[in-house]
């Protein structure tokens, strides 16, 4: 709810395993709300939502065990280093330091592993957030404006991660205003307008489609 108004109304969306779905739509359409709802960070006030077979109205916490969200914020601690943030996130979600280290390599942040979060550039922070998501080895990856602040190298890393996700049985839900970049990755696009989902006819080839 945004004040007295529902942020999402009539948002009807089914996503199959291994899909890469682009959520597009204007500012305030409800993209971030939908992603945070799927992540179990917002309570479901009405309707029905199931994520990875778990009813969010009944058990938001169970759904979280198998998903990861890269949001506008990094969920990191300013006074911890990159490696410490990553290892803490991995350990508390039941994963290992090896998972954290592999994720660090994947996003090319090894060079700044001992630098505190507060001293990272915006782009490096975005990559760290992506690494934290990867360290959780999610079955559902929720990405909210993931291209923001990334340089060419960072965008290439992001694209690699997203393209590889379905091969590992991971589904991706991606909200973005960088439509040209996002459409290159998506296998399907849906548009959110005023809290409602509209299917968008396929106009470009995505990761799951033939080139």
């Amino acid at each position, binding site marked *: 709810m945004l004040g007295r108004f529902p942020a999402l109304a009539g948002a009807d969306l089914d996503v199959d395993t291994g899909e890469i779905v682009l959520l597009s739509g204007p500012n305030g359409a409800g993209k971030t709300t939908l992603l945070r709802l799927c992540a179990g960070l917002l309570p479901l006030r009405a309707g029905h939502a199931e994520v990875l077979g778990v009813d969010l109205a009944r058990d*938001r916490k169970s759904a979280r065990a198998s998903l*990861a*969200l890269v949001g506008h914020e990094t969920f*990191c601690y300013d006074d911890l280093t990159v490696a410490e943030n990553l290892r803490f996130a991995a350990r508390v*979600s039941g994963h290992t330091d090896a998972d954290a280290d592999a994720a660090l390599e994947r996003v090319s942040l090894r060079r700044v592993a001992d630098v505190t979060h507060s001293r990272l550039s915006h782009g490096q922070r975005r990559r760290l957030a992506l690494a934290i998501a990867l360290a959780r080895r999610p079955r559902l990856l929720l990405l909210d404006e993931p291209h923001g602040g990334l340089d060419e190298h960072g965008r290439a890393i992001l694209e690699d991660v997203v393209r590889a996700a379905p091969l590992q049985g991971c589904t991706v839900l991606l909200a973005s205003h960088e439509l040209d970049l996002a459409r290159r990755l998506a296998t399907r696009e849906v548009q959110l307008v005023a809290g409602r989902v509209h299917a968008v006819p396929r106009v470009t080839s995505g990761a799951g489609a033939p080139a």
Partner: protein
Amino acid sequence: MTLVRDALLVAGKDLRIESRSRVALQQILPFGAIVVVLFAFALDADRALLSRAAPGLFWAAVLLAALLAVGRSFAVEEANRARDGLRLSGLDGGSVFLGKTAAIAVELFLLEVVLGILVVVLYDVALHDAMVLFCAALAATIGLAATGTVYGVLAGGLRARETLIPLLVLPAVTPVMLGGTRAFQAALDDAPGDAWPWVQLLTAFAVLAVAAGVLVFGPLLEEA
């Protein structure tokens, strides 16, 4: 065992943040020391009164500094929405509570040692029965940290948390102020027999605060 392991992870994280940021060392500890010194200035003309009031003044200084420690503990969770990271991790609320309580308790205990030394030096107090002092301080610290952690998460998501935390915590920790003061007073008077009932009160309060915190922290973390 998972509860303990996760609690240790959270406590270790919080203590590492504090050791690196030095907020506790450079702001909270000096604040507590300033309060102790101010009381000394205010009552210096009456040394006997200062000595007699030392236990109460000591715990008043600890409580005021504890408010900063609690606020700080939850401020680090609000920056970069780290709190959402904790929620996404799937950690049990009880383990987060125990971890944050333990970290605050360690900080407060160290603070009490330093403030205790200051009180002895500035207030002209002679210490007796160290065991009573230790047990009372331990129980009071755990109760204070647990209560602060519960109200800290309650106020954590609110814009007015800096002003709300004192309003919520101070009335709730009245038993700590009362029990700590009376137990210390009895110990300083070399009457440990009078102190133990107050130590028992502090212990009961700490147990209740920890038990309540384990139960309610998770839902509060979700909803606040």
